[in-house]
């Protein structure tokens, strides 16, 4: 990344202590060009995924493929934006909600609901109502977790990341334990809802999710300028007249909803957010959320659709994409940690 950090922690473009108007204009042009390239790539991936290798009934094949594309787009936007927002409010680049165990938390909430109310309640209740309840619980618990971990200032970054990772393990193990305590019939119902994959997404839930994501996206975009200021750090933000706590709280609510939607649709994909958020920051080289957010979303769509395309058409495998993302993301995370430690 072509940014150095001054002692006060304010990001400044390297070599340009006082950026001139022309430098700004050039940077904007570069950002716009990058966004256009990403959009073209995303479109190409979507088109290739939709139209390559159709045999037999076009209508039938396209309906299935477009549903998959819609799912990947919704999940991509949710994961990309939740990661960018989370990195902004926590002020570091190696943390994402998934690494902090947020998606495991959502799985745990789902499991506990089945454990408490039984599969019958799950099957008879309105899925949208149920989902709203799960999301509400998620917002509450994730905000609590965040406040508990980040509330004390001056806590070490690595301690926090490690704690987040272990929280993920704890939530995962608790969900596993609860799943073992549920009676086997209920467990089958739960398993259906937990091990959702790209290939079997409920159309009703998808529409509802898209609606939720749309609302959250609109809210995020309204916040984008304040987020730019929050990215400077708490003290600077307050100094500049932004209600830091209020913005952080709103961002956390948005993150919780986005993570819930993504996890409910396709299950946890631990490292996707880390990959796309950092890639976006690296490619557009800006801290402005108006550019960063669309770039991250486009990269997520390219990764998911392109990856799925290669897996399905070249290697004829269906559901291993998350495993590959976790492999690549894990290696990238280690590299990031090593580079960070050399600063």
């Amino acid at each position, binding site marked *: 990344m072509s940014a150095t950090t001054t002692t006060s922690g304010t990001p400044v473009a390297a070599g340009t202590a006082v950026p001139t108007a022309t430098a700004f204009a050039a940077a904007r042009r570069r950002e716009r060009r990058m966004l256009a390239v990403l959009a073209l790539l995303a479109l190409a991936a979507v088109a290739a995924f939709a139209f390559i290798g159709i045999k037999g009934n076009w209508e039938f094949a396209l309906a299935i493929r477009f549903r998959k594309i819609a799912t990947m787009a919704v999940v991509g936007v949710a994961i990309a934006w939740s990661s960018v927002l989370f990195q902004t409010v926590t002020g570091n680049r190696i943390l994402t909600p998934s690494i902090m165990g947020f998606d495991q938390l959502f799985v745990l909430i789902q499991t506990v609901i089945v454990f408490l109310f039984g599969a019958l309640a799950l099957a008879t209740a309105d899925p949208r109502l149920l989902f709203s309840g799960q999301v509400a619980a998620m917002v509450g618990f994730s905000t609590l977790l965040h406040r508990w971990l980040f509330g004390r200032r001056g806590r070490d970054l690595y301690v926090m990341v*490690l704690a987040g990772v272990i929280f993920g393990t704890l939530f995962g193990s608790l969900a596993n334990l609860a799943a073992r305590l549920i009676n086997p019939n209920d467990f089958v119902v739960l398993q259906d809802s937990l091990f959702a994959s790209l290939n079997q997404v409920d159309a009703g839930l998808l529409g509802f999710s898209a609606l939720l994501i749309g609302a959250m996206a609109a809210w995020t975009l309204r916040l984008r300028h304040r987020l730019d200021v929050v990215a400077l750090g708490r003290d600077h933000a307050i100094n500049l007249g932004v209600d830091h706590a209020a913005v952080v709280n709103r961002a956390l609510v948005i993150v919780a909803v986005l993570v819930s939607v993504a996890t409910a649709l396709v299950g946890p994909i631990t490292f996707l957010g880390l990959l796309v958020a950092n890639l976006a920051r690296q490619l557009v080289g800006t801290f402005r959320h108006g550019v960063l957010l669309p770039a991250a979303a486009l990269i997520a769509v390219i990764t998911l659709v392109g990856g799925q395309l290669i897996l399905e058409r070249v290697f004829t495998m269906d559901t291993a994409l998350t495993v590959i993302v976790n492999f690549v993301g894990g290696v990238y995370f*280690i590299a990031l940690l090593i580079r960070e430690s050399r600063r």
Partner: protein
Amino acid sequence: MTRRRSAGRLRAWHLAAGVVTLTVLAAASLLVGVGDVTPAGLLAGRAEDLHLLVESRLPRLLAVLLAGTAMSVAGLIMMHITGNRFVSPSTAGTTESATLGVLVATLFAGGEAVIVKMALAVACALLGTFVFMTILRRLTFRDMILVPLVGIMFGGVIGAATTFVAYRYDLLQTLGAWTSGDFSAVLRGRYELLWLAGGVTLLGYLYADRFTVAGMGRSFAINLGVRYDRVVNTGLVLASVITAVVVVTVGEIPFVSLIVPNLVTLALGDNLRYALPVTALAGAFFVLLCDVAGRLIRFPYEIPVSTVLGVVGSAIFLVLLLRGGRRMGVR
């Protein structure tokens, strides 16, 4: 400094009390299970009870004790030779590498004897651990927390690779059996490999002093006349062998190797002469407790020990991390 003064003040009666408690719990564990084994039945010499005891309960108890002891000692050794409290087989990719080894063995040497499988698991565990040590050397700034973080991620990457291979060859279900440690399938004739881990643990005790010195740092150790690199490599080999043997026989047992040595050395200090026997006892006790809990929580069904340990272990680790945090023996 109070901790330092109390360190090493291990009295004989402490150990004796520990042994007695462990014996009581062990005896009680023999009576827990779906089939009825009662003291009265055993005394009366009822054939069924005796059969159940000899074929299932006793082997299971021994397996639990051996695995608990060996894993926690392996953790203690790795903690010392890396000079980092939070490095253990489960945070250095050793466990995951051993699992990858079992998968490789199943793919290429499915028909071979268990000992071949184990050899491959040991080889992979060693390779993985040494790769991790190489990564460690690349970290110029060796942060106490950063090291296990990198280790956990390294383990995750190896785990992802393992899952991918298993998926490709339709072995996901089999993989599930190795990744979740479980003593419920232990019968006479199916756990004896664990004695090997027990033997290696004893070997670790012979090296205890040298590990202690190695834990004080490279230059210090060399100054004291210890062949540092050799001791470190020996420790890594011992820990890898133990981990691989446990993974091959009962599956991955998470967190024991991390939690137990930490709690013990917090109470006793870093002299392995004292810490090692206590760690061994405490590890056996801890795993046995979790195993019995797993048998009782949803009686007559069983919850695998790895699930119980995942919950208890991660909770304890979080407390250690967030409460003790940086103050705990930063090197």
